[in-house]
């Protein structure tokens, strides 16, 4: 990870060089690591998409082979879900949650570093095989028995099974960390109903992770045992049940969709009020609808399985449950528009992306309701119509929201603005490219084009739509390159930003940009949902419930009344104890990945070497963990 000296770092005297990044336990630096790593994987996943679309530009092309194509689409899905959108959200969780709730770090800073390193190394584990032509090739959904040893015998799906297990550790550790952080480390007066909406949505997401990931972990364990130790959970010749996998996968897989989208909803809920100069419309309903989405999200998994023949009763129940989830989602859309309505709107790039999310996610939401009806869905499922749908949700929704977040928080993170001019180019190219890529897929799908095919015959009526989709993908590439250029250029030479460049309402804007390593010199007393507006534009927050000046009730000796910190001092000067940097979380993560790699060696048939690798990795992990647990935090 590079560290340019031109950027004011958090504590330039102590924190620089590669070593400081590997050993950091600062939630902000870990957030930045997440951001960079995820953007790197975005490039990887994007190039995979580009190859996929190039292959499909015309009928009967052979840009890549069938086998390569199957690896590409498997890895495109796996990469974008597990290595891009989730970690990009994690970047914001890390960076923002402590700042938004007025804390000096997350609850477990070293566990936080551990989560990141497991993600980074696990990501390499699952990504590298594609350069050797042995990448996972059973789809990101890994349907049994194709993912099992009989029909998927190579190393390919080994990397997938083990890789997802590794990544699951990262997500679970992070989720527990953030739940504890949000519950325990809120500043005095920061009640749950005063939390910024991004923190609220993140809070919901952490519970989704904690409840959904164990299910995929169990499912993967079965598959792992099938693949390596001869069990028959999914092995059909021995009477195994492939539907078991599907149910388990989607019990995880559907909440996963909300794990991907809710953080973006949270970011947009920060951007829209700021640039509308109006508080979020219906804060309570926004929070409750998020919880509702999370709750209902666990009751709709089988709508991915309408074609497997579950019978009319199950079909009906899952159909109606799926329709219901449209309600809390729809409420969010209307509340966002109502937030803007009557406001005083300003349109920096972040606002454009936020509005872009509303406009594009609506399309994905409507087509989502369309799939909720099995008779109609049976004509749509596993066609390009579905591909269109979930890309409107994940690109038009999650990615738009994340870009909004990046443009919005870049000044906070770096102390510099991103270029608005380049940002506008990126936004519009993105907007056009996204629609040009994914809108025609609605047509090709409804006109009969199946998903996951590496080639198609001429004369099927799909040629034009595919060509459009491919052209759109190249536009998205250009937009991506502009973003990358803007990002790296602005880091070095963007216009300097003040601590509160947008006039935003929440706590993270009350401290310098970039924030000092201790975040808050004095933990603020929170008396409102919009503390910064209380300070700067009191008329704006006058009538809001949960914004009463009850400072008198807060009896915390260390807390200071709400204020803006502009001075930059070191933690030492302030006498704030900071956690020590440590390499141990990285070592534990390394040990875990080495241990899992032993399974690959086992598949090679080199039993002694495999045992040595696994035991070696295991012992290394336990030893590092012991050293970690016995060394003081600060």
């Amino acid at each position: 990870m590079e560290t340019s000296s031109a950027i004011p770092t958090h504590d330039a005297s102590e924190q620089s060089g590669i070593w400081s990044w590997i050993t950091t336990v600062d939630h902000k630096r870990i957030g930045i690591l997440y951001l960079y790593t995820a953007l790197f994987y975005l490039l990887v996943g994007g190039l995979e998409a580009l190859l996929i679309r190039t292959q499909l530009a015309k009928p009967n092309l052979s840009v890549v082979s069938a086998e390569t194509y199957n690896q590409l689409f498997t890895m495109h899905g796996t990469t974008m879900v597990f290595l891009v959108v989730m970690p990009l959200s994690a970047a914001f969780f890390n960076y923002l949650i402590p700042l938004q709730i007025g804390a000096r770090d997350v609850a477990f800073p070293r566990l936080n570093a551990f989560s990141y390193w497991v993600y980074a190394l696990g990501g390499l584990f699952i990504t590298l095989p594609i350069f050797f032509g042995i990448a996972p090739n059973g789809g990101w959904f890994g349907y049994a028995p194709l993912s099992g040893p009989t029909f998927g015998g190579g190393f390919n799906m080994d990397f997938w099974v083990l890789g997802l297990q590794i990544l699951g550790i990262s997500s679970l550790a992070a989720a527990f960390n953030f739940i504890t952080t949000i519950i325990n480390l809120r500043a005095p007066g920061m009640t749950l109903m005063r939390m910024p909406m991004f923190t609220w949505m993140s809070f919901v997401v952490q519970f989704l992770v904690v409840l959904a990931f164990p299910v995929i972990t169990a499912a993967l364990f079965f598959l792992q045992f099938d693949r390596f130790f001869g069990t028959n959970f999914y092995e059909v010749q021995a009477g195994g049940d492939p539907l078991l996998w599907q149910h388990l996968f989607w019990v995880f897989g559907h909440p996963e969709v909300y794990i991907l989208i809710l953080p973006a909803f949270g970011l947009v809920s920060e951007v829209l009020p700021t640039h509308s100069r109006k508080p979020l419309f219906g804060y309570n309903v926004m929070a409750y609808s998020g919880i509702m989405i999370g709750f209902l999200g666990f009751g709709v998994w089988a709508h991915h399985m309408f074609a497997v023949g579950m019978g009319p009763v199950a079909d009906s129940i899952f159909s109606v449950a799926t329709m219901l989830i449209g309600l809390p989602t729809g409420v969010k859309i209307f509340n966002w528009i109502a937030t803007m309505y009557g406001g005083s709107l300003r349109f920096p790039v972040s606002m454009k992306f936020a509005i872009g999310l509303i406009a594009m996610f609506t399309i994905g939401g409507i087509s989502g309701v369309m799939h909720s009806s099995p008779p109609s869905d049976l004509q749509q499922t596993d066609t390009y119509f579905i591909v269109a749908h979930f890309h409107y949700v994940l690109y038009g929704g999650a990615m738009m929201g994340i870009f909004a977040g990046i443009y919005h928080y870049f000044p906070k993170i770096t102390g510099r603005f991103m270029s608005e001019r380049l940002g506008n180019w990126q936004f519009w190219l993105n907007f056009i490219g996204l629609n040009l890529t994914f809108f025609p897929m609605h047509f090709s799908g409804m006109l009969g084009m199946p998903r996951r095919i590496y080639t198609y015959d001429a004369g099927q009526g799909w040629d034009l739509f595919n060509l459009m989709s491919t052209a759109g993908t190249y536009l998205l590439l250009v937009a991506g390159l502009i973003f990358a250029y803007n990002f790296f250029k602005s880091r070095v030479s963007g216009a300097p930003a003040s601590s509160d460049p947008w006039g935003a309402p929440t706590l993270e804007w009350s401290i310098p940009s970039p924030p000092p390593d201790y975040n808050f010199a004095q933990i603020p007393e929170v008396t409102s949902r919009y503390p910064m507006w209380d300070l700067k534009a009191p008329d704006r927050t006058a009538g809001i419930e949960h914004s009463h000046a009850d400072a008198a009730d807060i009896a915390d000796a260390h807390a200071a009344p709400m204020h803006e910190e502009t001075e930059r001092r070191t933690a030492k000067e302030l006498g704030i104890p900071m956690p020590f940097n440590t390499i141990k979380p990285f070592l534990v993560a390394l040990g875990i990945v080495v241990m899992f790699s032993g399974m690959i060696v086992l598949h090679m048939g080199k039993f002694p070497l495999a045992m040595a690798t696994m035991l070696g990795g295991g012992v290394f992990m336990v030893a590092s963990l012991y050293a970690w647990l016995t060394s003081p935090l600060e």
Partner: protein
Amino acid sequence: MPKLHLRRVAPVAVLALALLALAACGGDYPNSTFSKNTELNDGAVFIWDRMMLLGTIVFVVVEVLLVYTIFKFRRREGGPAPRQIHGNAALEITWTAIPALILVFLAVPTVRTIFENQRKAPANALQVEVIGHQWWWEFRYPEYGITTANELYLPIGRTVNFSLRTRDVLHSFWIPQLGGKRDLIANKVNYIWFTPKETLSPAALNGACVEYCGASHANMRFRTFTVTAADFDKWVAHQKTVAIGSPAAGAAAAAADSAAKAKPAVPVKTASIIPVAAPAEPTVPEAWVFPADKLPAYAIPSTPMPATAFDDALLAAGDAKAGRELLMNPANLGKAPCMTCHVVKGETNYATDDNAKGPNLTHFGTRHTFGAGLFRNDARTLALWIKNAPAMKPGSVMPTFGVGEFNPMIKQQVPAAAGLDDKQIADIVAYLRSLK
């Protein structure tokens, strides 16, 4: 700065959308899911139409509100500070209730249609067993003792009840023009039924596997021919006979002959290895298939051919008898083990329909395509296929047979001792194409 961008970009976006709409309205869409060809698709299209209408209303309302808000409330220098509204319970209840009401209009027909579609099929329905293989389709008509592959014949006006199974991984059976899909799940039998409407004219329709099933998932296609009831009967009468040139066929013909001449009191038993389903008829019924000249362009595959060379002169001189001898003589099993994986009804079979790795070839010569809808069934393509199938269809279980050809599956060249030369392949092609 940024303000002008919208105006610059909007026309482009509008133009693109208009172009798309235009493209979607004109043109020829042979796999459209909007064809009301069966009662199953009537239900799907009905619900789709309603969803499209309601969805469009929601879309327009949301986007108009959004665009209106963007333009109406853009910040003006010196404009008044916005009125601070933090929520409005009545409004929020309204925009929850209206979508809820919309969903009722969707849920009621949905549940009704689900139960309608999943009733038991009518008792007199034509039963068709669909068996998925990596990567081809086996179709059986148990009522008639017919087993065929990759080409499905359905009588217009009669309900057809498919029972769906798979021999290996999961697949999904789909004929977009006739109705929704149903997965083929290992260790489970699934069903789907529909009735091609009386009013349909005979047609060739494309079908495909739509559940990702490995290397050649994209190459697991099939053809469906919806034909008149009379034509279907003709097709059945012919398809249920044994293969031309097989001992069983010879015996049947001889029996019929002698029956005509001597009228023996005892019916002659046919000498087939596999029992012939129908009693020997006096004459072999005329082969009837969907006429080749009526095949629409979209049903004729244009899959690219490999670079494999083949001498056309040899093909013209192909000898069906020699080809049959090559396949049927156990002495040739080492070189031409075709019959260990394929079944030809009436011949010496080493495989049965239940364990055959490849398609049943009994009336192969009557099929328009092979390789699961990938290739035209002509002599040259077939020769290239036998020479090196894996080079034409990734992952193909059928090995490379041509001497000197490179087998991409095992990454080896076929040695002269183990392979077939072009002359032999031409003979086999001639035999297979004679299987009318």
